[in-house]
């Protein structure tokens, strides 16, 4: 399946890109995505961030499905 990853704020400093597409063989939990991300970008290990799936914050046990838009969100600092 195909998922869309979007990066914001400080996370972009690490990934170097604002978004990318991933091919995954099976449905995955956000926990598994987090592990894959850390493999690809080891510096993420030092960062605090949350996941949003299709515009809503989700816990790490959330199961990602085909075509999901997954956002990696560092601490908010609006206002």
């Amino acid at each position: 399946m195909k998922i869309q990853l979007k990066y914001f704020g400080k996370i972009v400093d690490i990934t170097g890109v604002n978004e990318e597409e991933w091919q995954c063989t099976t449905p995955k939990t956000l926990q598994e995505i987090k592990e894959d991300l850390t493999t690809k970008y080891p510096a993420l290990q030092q960062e605090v961030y949350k996941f949003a799936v299709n515009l809503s914050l989700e816990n790490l046990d959330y199961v990602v499905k085909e075509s999901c838009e997954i956002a990696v969100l560092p601490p908010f600092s609006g206002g």
Partner: protein
Amino acid sequence: MENKSKIKNVFIQGPITPAYIADSIAHHQVKTNIGGHDLFLGQVRADQIGGKVVEAIDYSAYEEMANQVFHEIREKTFEKFDLVCMHIYHSIGIVKAGEICLFVFTSSKHRAMAMDACRYVVEEIKAKAPVFGKEIMNGDQYQWKVNQ
């Protein structure tokens, strides 16, 4: 009462100007059931960070989600407080020190409601809106802002 169900775009490119705020106030003068407005304005501070001074904040956001979050905050605020209307505007892009980056505007028949609602909205925005501020110092250096 305003239409509450449509998702609006809350973001304004660059600073929110005093003239924009004045315009917004003027538009409420036809609503003669309003007795009190509360306006909160967030302004960029020239904080000192390790000997360097913040010159501006460059705001970015997950805009689609943020507008959704702002919409949910609006809905909840109208449920909790007896408001005539409310507005939220947030800057995106560069806002220099001394300029305004957030404008929350609540209006009610009575003052207490407007003030309670305004505070609620500001706290909700700080906690829930996926907006990210990059504090720019000495032109090319920066650090990512963290809300207190």
